[in-house]
């Protein structure tokens, strides 16, 4: 940063304490970004190891104990410490106040506290891993986790218990902020869809997370004090755990995808220069998904010993999730029509998201359909399905969002060519990794198998090969984004010529975001597709330098 630059939130002060005691939502977003990136690579390293192991059927690279600990680590770290905070805590934190024209979130100190709570939870989890790991799977099914596992279940459970509060407080903060701090003129139906998606997500965070906290507390009571809750040997009921666990963890899946949908709505409109198609339908489908999410947990339990009738009801209700999901996909696709489309990196990620989410969502119907679920439950089909949503969906959206708002966050452009290369690499690497797993699953390969039947090897080798491409695809952005911090072209306030309020601030924004509170006279996504109709396609880096 040169001395001549105007003051912004990054160069406002340089001391370490100015970061660790900051209450600026933008700085807190950066703290989260660094933390979840570290956790992402911890979880990713575990995946590298077990994908290597799965190259051969015998289970010869790792012993079973270590394999089991690695997939547990991968699940816990990726779900609770990367996916759940990814878009909300980084992009949501940074952008929500900017998008609604506010100075900060409603409770800035609480926001900082959320990050500290996240870090304490992460610390417990890391300690449990370093101390020897946990081998229960991220699902902690009882009585395995309470009675039969000899690993550090308690430490990891404490980690997840603690990090839950971070989610709750972030959700609370977003809800209050959205209700009370919108700029003059910014009515609910003028809110960007990113805000709607975060609002829906926050509802799930606030209502769902306490349930998983209580559940883990009960696991701790049983494991630590021998109070029988889940272990039938002590008079408990093992299915009770599954009901409680999935009552949170199914809605949690929507915590891990709704914010990504919010990102995609922003990207699609900007890079097709078009008003979003079916605004109200996309907005309300986010709420519909959030509400339906609480009614479908039993579809994880069709072969658990749950009653036949419960199976029927949960299958029926689960089918309804298809409607708001389809509404979103169709509306995004319709938004493209008649637009002026350019394929910069964020748009590549957004289009990749739509395709992969479509396939991920449709394969979810296989799992909601009772008879088929009996066969594919707990097989690689499930693994493939939720990775299409979580990685093909959420991680693509997160990376798309990071690239889109990188100039706003850092004031610098990333290198466009490298961005496109890695987006394409990630798309193909992802499909090569996870598509064969659908086939494996229908063939009957169970998940969490350290050694497997030899006829499954070819498909597993394909999957591992894809994973290595995917791994490279993730390392390249890490490298060039870090490089761009110093060497990237200066972005200017609005390199994409986008219309959101966040683009009316300088890049990077000042500590207080807006010079004076903005007034919002009309609906969002006020793009004109004719405006760019004659400019040459694919202008590198999208827009001219303005500073």
């Amino acid at each position: 940063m040169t001395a001549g630059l105007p003051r912004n939130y990054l160069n406002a002060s340089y001391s370490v304490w100015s970061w660790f005691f900051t209450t600026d939502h933008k700085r807190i977003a950066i703290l989260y970004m660094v933390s979840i990136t570290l956790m992402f690579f911890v979880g990713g390293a575990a995946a590298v190891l077990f994908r290597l192991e799965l190259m051969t059927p015998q289970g010869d690279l790792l012993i079973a104990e270590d394999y089991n600990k690695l997939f547990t680590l991968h699940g816990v770290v990726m779900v609770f410490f990367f996916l759940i905070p990814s878009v909300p805590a980084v992009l949501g934190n940074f952008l929500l106040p900017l998008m609604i024209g506010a100075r900060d979130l409603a409770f800035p100190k609480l926001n900082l506290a959320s990050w500290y709570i996240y870090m304490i939870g992460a610390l417990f989890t890391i300690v449990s891993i370093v101390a020897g790991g946990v081998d229960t799977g991220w699902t902690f099914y009882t009585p395995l986790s309470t009675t039969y596992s000899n690993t550090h279940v308690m430490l990891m459970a404490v980690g997840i218990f603690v990090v839950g509060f971070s989610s709750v407080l972030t959700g609370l903060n977003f809800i209050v902020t959205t209700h009370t701090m919108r700029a003059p003129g910014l009515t609910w139906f003028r809110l960007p869809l990113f805000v709607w998606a975060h609002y829906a997500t926050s509802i799930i965070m606030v209502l769902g997370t306490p349930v998983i906290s209580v559940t883990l507390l009960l696991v701790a009571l049983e494991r630590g004090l021998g109070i029988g809750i889940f272990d039938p040997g002590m008079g408990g009921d093992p299915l009770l755990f599954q009901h409680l666990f999935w009552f949170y963890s199914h809605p949690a899946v929507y915590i891990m995808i709704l914010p990504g949908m919010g990102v995609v709505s922003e990207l699609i409109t900007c890079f097709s220069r078009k008003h979003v198609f079916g605004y109200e339908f996309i907005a309300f489908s986010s709420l519909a998904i959030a509400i339906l999410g609480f009614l479908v947990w039993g579809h994880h339990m069709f072969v658990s010993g749950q009653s036949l009738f419960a199976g029927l009801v949960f299958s029926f209700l689960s089918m309804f999730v298809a409607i708001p999901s389809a509404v979103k996909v169709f509306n995004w696709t319709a938004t493209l029509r008649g637009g002026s489309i350019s394929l910069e990196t964020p748009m590549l990620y957004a289009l990749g998201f739509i395709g992969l989410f479509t396939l991920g969502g449709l394969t979810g119907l296989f799992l909601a359909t009772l008879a088929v679920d009996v066969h594919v439950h707990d097989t690689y089909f499930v693994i493939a399905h939720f990775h299409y949503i979580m990685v093909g969906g959420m991680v693509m959206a997160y990376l798309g969002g990071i690239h889109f708002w990188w100039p706003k966050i850092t004031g610098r452009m990333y290198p466009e060519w490298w961005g496109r290369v890695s987006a394409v690499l990630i798309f193909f690497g992802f499909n090569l990794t996870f598509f064969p797993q659908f086939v494996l699953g229908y063939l009957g390969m169970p998940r969490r198998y350290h050694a497997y039947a030899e006829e499954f090897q070819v498909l597993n080798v394909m999957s591992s090969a894809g994973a290595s491409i995917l791994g490279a695809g993730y390392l390249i952005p890490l490298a060039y984004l870090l490089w761009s911090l110093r060497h990237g072209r200066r972005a200017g306030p609005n390199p994409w010529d986008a219309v959101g309020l966040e683009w009316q601030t300088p890049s990077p924004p000042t500590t207080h975001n807006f010079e004076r509170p903005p007034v919002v006279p009309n609906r969002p996504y006020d793009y004109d597709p004719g405006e760019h109709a004659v400019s040459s396609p694919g202008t590198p880096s999208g827009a001219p330098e303005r500073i």
Partner: protein
Amino acid sequence: MPETHDPPIDRSFRLFPEQASSVAGEVDAVYFFLLAVAAFFTVLIFVLIVYFALRYRRGANVRRGHGGHTNYTLEVAWCLVPFGLTMVMFFWGAKVYYRINLPPAEAAEVYVLAKQWMWKFQHPEGKREIDRLHVPLGRPIRLKMISEDAIHSFYVPAFRVKNDVLPSRYTTVWFEPTKPGAYHLFCAEYCGTGHSKMVGKVVVLRPAEYADWLAGRTDEPLAEAGRRMFEGFGCHTCHDPGPSQRCPPLEGLYGSQVPLAEGGFVEADEDYIRESILDPRAKVRAGYRPIMPTFEEQIDDEEQMILLIEYIKSLSRQRPRGAQLRSMENADEAAPQDPLPPPGVRPPMDDMPE
């Protein structure tokens, strides 16, 4: 018949699993419908995205900006189409699920004991097997399954059936093998260190081969072993018909509707019998006093419990088999059956010793 004559599992590379049970084809039919729907919409969305991205690329000479903001007809259409399709999925899937879950009355029974990390099978005739299950071709087989420790899951991909095996109560899986051969048996619910070693095979034999196999070296029938345990614990002193009978008779008990002291009825299935042995006061039969002690300490494991249960079930087999099956099938509509005590037995309530 020696185990070495078992056919090997087909380990050739394939992209679609074998169909070896009566429900496999039905499950696959639903699956193909889902596959067709999924392929159609995935291709549709991919084609539209690519088409729009090319046609409306920036700089192309094309009319833009049409289409408006929201088209309510379209919105309603793409709410209704997924709704219609998913309802087909639901009803079709539910119909087959129903079939997967309700074993036919004539199914032969095998007990399954899951423990870290092995499968034990006990045929009522006395055969016991580990990690290997022999079944006859073309006959429905019902598995009564229970776990000694964590939750496991019995899964035979070629049969398209799976059900968790719980430590607390019996769960059931049934299948009718339609193709001789050997098939993978997997534990599908993660159960700790040796989870991926908790595998075995199901061997489907032609009826004649199966009869040979069953006639080979065998242990005593389960009910017989159960009877010795029953008498060893002295259960017969109170339960057997006679002047000293203080507890409910067990003849005809299995499958009947038991009237409870607290009101209502419970079906006397495996879980009820098991619970009544471990916690006799949980569901006391109407007209009897809760005097039976728990046998939790005396019974070492679920294997012994299976013997006792099988013995008690054998006491109901004297009844016409058809009648017993009917009472199981139509449990709700059938009038509660309280089998008459054998003649000469006094009603148990009267002058019971304190």
